[in-house]
């Protein structure tokens, strides 16, 4: 029976993967690109040199952080689509703190900057959390709207109060902030590449999230609220409070992702800095089964996809928007597959379909296995 279970799960995952590949191949074919060549470029291109490999990890860092937050929210029964906006607010907060305290030593400034990012992101997500808990506002809609609002705030600050004075002097007016002070910059792990120590932070936080969700009372409360709100309420858990907590934590992780991205990669707030990590993080979280141990490989895989997609744009002329198509198809396949993976009923149906005339299979016996 176990072998069947494994085969069943494997078959579902394989089908979902095939559907994703075929779906995006259809779009590639429509724009006259060879799907095979494109996939080969995406999956092998980044491995050609050290820079490409480190670049995969550079992309994986914000993805891990965002996905951890998303996983906390989803596990607690609240859907956070607003990581993009929370990341942006985190970037604004982190940049503001870093620029406001230029003389501070690194050991004090850097943690403070990242904390500011977490607070910014947490605050932005908290709005949606409180609205959901107190007024029943659908959190999907409010987080989506908060994304658009955050994006406008961001351009407002970059064009106005936070613009690099140098840009105004030269008159070029590129909307970007001043360069962060040296003390607020994460050091590089591999010289000559963009890989920074944020990777270590992301991995440490993975372990923290695992312990928090599965080995603390607080984490249990969140998961219970998400798994079965009614039962949790009967058990005395304040479900509404859990929703807000989960949302704030979720946003804090997105904010940290933003702070790490600005202090580790760009070293100043520039336009399009979040570049879709907030949305890709949702896909990574789902792909990683909402578990830290799954999120890390999923983030590396999507980091590869992102770097590869950039390469196809340069070499094969496939627009980078293709990554959105891929992500969309993957989400649709995952959520479809998920309903069959842990569905004992569907599994039983398939099994009977393969052995229809097995007299030994009575409902009583199979009921025990489900």
């Amino acid at each position, binding site marked *: 029976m176990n072998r069947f279970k494994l085969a069943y799960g494997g078959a579902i995952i394989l089908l979902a993967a095939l559907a994703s590949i075929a779906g995006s191949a259809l779009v590639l074919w429509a724009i006259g690109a060879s799907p095979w060549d494109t996939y080969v470029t995406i999956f092998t291109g980044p491995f050609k040199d050290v820079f490409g490999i480190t670049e995969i990890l550079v992309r994986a860092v914000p993805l891990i952080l965002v996905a951890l937050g998303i996983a906390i929210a989803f596990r607690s029964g609240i859907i956070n689509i607003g990581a993009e906006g929370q990341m942006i607010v985190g970037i604004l907060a982190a940049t503001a703190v870093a620029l406001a305290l230029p003389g501070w030593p690194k050991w004090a400034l850097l943690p403070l900057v990242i904390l500011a990012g977490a607070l910014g992101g947490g605050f932005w997500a908290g709005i949606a959390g409180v609205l959901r808990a107190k*007024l029943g506002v659908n959190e999907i809609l*409010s987080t989506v*709207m908060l994304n658009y609002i955050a994006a406008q705030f961001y351009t407002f600050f970059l064009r106005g109060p936070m613009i690099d004075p140098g840009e105004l002097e030269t008159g070029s007016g590129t909307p970007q902030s001043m360069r962060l002070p040296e003390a607020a910059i994460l050091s590089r792990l591999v010289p000559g590449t963009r890989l920074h120590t944020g990777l270590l932070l992301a991995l440490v936080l993975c372990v923290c999230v695992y312990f928090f969700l599965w080995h603390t009372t607080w984490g249990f409360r969140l998961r219970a609220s998400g798994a079965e709100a009614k039962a949790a309420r009967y058990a005395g858990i304040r479900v509404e409070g859990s929703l807000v907590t989960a949302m704030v934590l979720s946003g804090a992780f997105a904010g940290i992702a933003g702070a790490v991205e600005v202090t580790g990669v760009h070293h100043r707030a520039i336009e399009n800095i979040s570049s879709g990590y907030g949305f890709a993080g949702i896909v990574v979280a789902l792909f990683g089964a909402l578990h830290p141990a799954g999120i890390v490989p999923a983030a590396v895989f999507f980091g590869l996809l992102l770097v590869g997609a950039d390469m196809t744009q340069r070499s094969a002329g496939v627009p980078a928007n293709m990554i959105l198509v891929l992500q*969309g198809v993957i*989400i*649709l396949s995952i959520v479809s597959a998920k*309903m069959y993976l842990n569905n004992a009923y569907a599994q039983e149906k398939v099994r009977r379909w393969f052995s229809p005339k097995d007299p030994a299979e009575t409902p009583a016996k199979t009921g025990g296995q489900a």
Partner: protein
Amino acid sequence: MTHGFIYNILSLGVPFSVALLLASLGENFNQRAGVFNLGCEGIMCMGAFLGFLPSYLLKTGPFLPYANLLGFALAMAAGVVLGLLFALVVVTFRAEQGIAGIGLQMLGWGVAGTLFRHFIGGVTGVEGMAAWPIPGLNRIPFLGGILFNHNPMVYLAFLMVPASWYILYKSPWGLKVRAAGTEPRAADSMGINVNRVRYQALMLGGAMAGLGGAYLSLCQAKMFADDLVAGRGFIAVALVYFGRWSPLGILGGALLFSIAQSLQLAIQVGGIKFPYEFAVMLPYVLVILVLALARKARMRGPTHLGIPYNREMRY
């Protein structure tokens, strides 16, 4: 002066409401049938691109007069296809609707963007649809210019309000839709195929969202860009909540938004100092406010909204 100011705002605001209105009325069918379709945004993106494409390709040819029609047809077809895809995922596979909707949004947005970048490249304008003033009615002082001096899609969209009211409340199919969203089990025992009704509602909703998208590119902006839709699909979903699942309420919501938008434009043109970004932000803030202030007690939506129907499952 104030008379002219109000006239300008209203005569601009009415056509602005059409894309929201069409998408939102379509989404209403989805939600009434029990399906929460956040992919509306993605469908609108595809609709906007495909609506624009024929006009762009036939720019110089003799078929230009038919380009608009072809564009609308293509947009609706794309909406039906994406609606079917969404139905497959959330009705047949019973996937979580909120997340699947985000997937559909990314897919529609991504496909439209990819095709646009590949085939067109940069932002290009099209002729778009000309106004068809209704003879006689457009002479009515004040109201004539506000209501009867627009392109035909505006009239069509406003006719869709009573039409969708009639379909929902007076037609047998509308009864099935409402039953599928509120009491799917009872509907099933009365011999209504709940999943089939949901498929049909999603196809209809998709077609209307596609049409709304095409309206944006052909009638409103008269061009296409990656971010043309800019969250209008999500606003359309929010409007369904705001309008409490009634076509008339949705019309009110759509007009509120479009008039706010034209007011914001008027303020900008009028030279009142106001950061541009805050003006752009306004509709999104409005959505959150509207959702927050709508009284929860009176939000009696379809009870099975977002819950997949599984006839073989005990509740």
